[in-house]
């Protein structure tokens, strides 16, 4: 399936490009995520989404690479800005729409919303808001697979540089290495934990240096460069699958939105916006596609139109579905009914 990359040394500036078929597939997942999240933002501004909207604008290249190399039987524990990766892993777009719009037919049935969703039976864990908590959960899922005799599986979980400072994250990384599970942790440094810049988040020279301390193998990647993301994250997945120690990939980007859509991100400085990592990965990818002649302008437009149609379909479907009703809700937090406390 892998094809030789169509690239010229001059245009790619010596970087190793991903095979172009995969590159274009990744681009289309990124595009779908972008178009979908633009729609979510517009619905939110129109007052049609309750709670928050948290988008991955600027992080799609890293995220999509997280989802693309995972297969059925793998474990994926995405985080807040991983729409592209979730779609690439196989999450139906309509389920995302259902979760944001509170449809009773969505995986969370109106009980939880926005990015707090998952489908654990399909290998996609349902994140909680407490950062770092999903690292050890992924480790446990991988240990169980190993003990059941499954082979050739891998787990991948995402974190930001903000979450990397939580105790839970450190415990999870350490236990992953102790247990030697086939795990990839992709950490995206988007330079702000909500409004707090890097210099108030950590004081080490480079976050990837921690890999050695944890007993991971560590790599860095420019999160604006899709080819590099596919290469570095794809290779990390391959190494983990082959039995190498756990892998840490640290990507550098700028979050091109607020923390959520309620946040105007006015604290993001002009200086940081001028940094190379502040470029929009989607635009960078489109430029590569055009420059290398991987697709023409007409095709790109068609893909965008297709994405918009898919998004509309998902949103329209979810909008037609019933919201949960308090009177019909099963107000029960445990599955074994005879053990429910009768208050």
């Amino acid at each position, binding site marked *: 399936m892998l094809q030789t990359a169509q690239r010229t040394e001059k245009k790619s500036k010596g970087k190793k490009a991903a095979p172009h078929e995969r590159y274009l597939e990744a681009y289309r997942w990124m595009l779908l995520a972008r178009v979908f999240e633009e729609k979510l933002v517009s619905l939110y501004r129109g007052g049609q989404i309750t709670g928050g909207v948290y988008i991955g604008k600027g992080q799609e290249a890293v995220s999509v690479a997280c989802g693309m190399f995972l297969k059925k039987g793998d474990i994926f524990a995405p985080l807040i800005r991983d729409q592209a990766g979730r779609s690439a892993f196989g999450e139906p777009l309509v389920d995302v729409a259902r979760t944001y719009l509170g449809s009773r037919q969505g995986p969370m049935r109106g009980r939880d919303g926005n990015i707090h969703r998952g489908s654990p039976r399909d290998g996609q864990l349902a994140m909680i808001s407490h950062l770092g908590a999903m690292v*050890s959960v992924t480790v*446990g899922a991988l240990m*169980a697979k190993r003990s059941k005799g499954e082979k050739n599986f891998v787990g991948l979980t995402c974190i930001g540089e903000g979450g990397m400072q939580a105790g839970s994250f450190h*415990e999870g990384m350490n236990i992953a290495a102790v247990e030697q599970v086939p795990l990839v942790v992709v950490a995206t440094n988007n330079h702000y934990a909500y409004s707090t810049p890097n210099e108030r988040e950590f004081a080490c020279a480079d976050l990837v240096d921690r890999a050695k301390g944890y007993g991971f193998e560590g790599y860095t990647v420019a999160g604006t460069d899709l080819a590099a993301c596919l290469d570095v994250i794809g290779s990390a997945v391959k190494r983990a699958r082959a039995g190498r120690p756990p892998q840490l990939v640290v990507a550098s980007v700028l979050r091109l939105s607020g923390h959520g859509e309620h946040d105007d991100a006015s604290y993001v400085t002009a200086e940081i916006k001028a940094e190379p990592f502040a470029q929009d990965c989607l635009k960078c990818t489109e430029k590569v596609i055009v420059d290398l002649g991987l697709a023409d302008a007409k095709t790109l437009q068609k893909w965008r139109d297709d994405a918009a149609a898919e998004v509309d379909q998902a949103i329209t479907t979810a909008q037609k579905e019933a919201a949960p009703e308090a009177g019909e809700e099963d107000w029960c*937090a445990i599955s074994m009914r005879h053990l*429910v406390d009768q208050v």
Partner: protein
Amino acid sequence: MSITYLEAIREAQAKLLREDERVFIYGQDVGGTFGGAFKATKGLAKEFPGRVLNTPISEDAMVGTAIGAALQGMRPIVEMQFADFSSIALNQILNNAGTHYWRTNIPVPITVRLPSGGTKGSGPFHSQSMEALYAHYPGLVVMTPATVEDAYTMLIEAVAIDDPVVYCEHKYLYYHLKADKLPTEALPTGKARIARAGRDLTIVTYSAMVHESLAVADELAREGLEIEIVDLRSVKPLDTDTVLASVARTGRLLCVGESFPWGGATAEIIARVTAEGFHLLDAAPVRINAKDTPIPYHPNLWSAHRPNAKAIAGKARRLLRE
């Protein structure tokens, strides 16, 4: 032959490991030849290779790992070295395991064992009873066995339960309690037990305080007073029906708990009895808990911090005079 409360916990785990390949034990120092700080897993690592695993000092990650394994079909038992240290894992227990079924429709069958409660000289960080805290949050079953028999059968049931279970085993009972043999049958979780029948006063309690209360009942029996003792067995679910039925017989209620006084199981019982059985009460219900300070180290202080038989008897006598 006799078997202690602690040995019953070990035997239950041996049986679970033997009969269910989904079970593994995960905790600090549980493996190797050591077998746990209290020896609750002694010999199990050798008998069940690869299934009784030492962990780093990472309570959060221990429970997180158990959650992930449970989602993949395993039945992990996590041993906290002391209940007190489970505070580090609160997030995973409450926010991850406790919310998972509600959020996703998929339950998380983990059992978290908490060596709980006070013993002489253990001090503020090795003596806590945390059942009230776990019972407060949705999504968890909270067991508080008071007998050798319950220690055994309830641990086996905990692992069979599809939902997360916090199993509070009392350290004071580890060596003090003995039974002739392991039971073959048991009350189901959620049913309280009448530990002693009486007609003058109901004491509702659980875990080690059942035994303090039984001592009080013996003492008052010499004065011609008949105390009924309800052993809750689990604080969540809480068997309000058995408590109300007992109060209907006696008309007087004293609740005894070893944990801190603000809120908790004793307050919950009084709230329920007052709301649902006010007409059954001949006197205002009374409760006794530990003092509202950290748990002291010195035996002179420790024995006054927790409810002891003398303090419970004092409360009972006063309540019987009303």
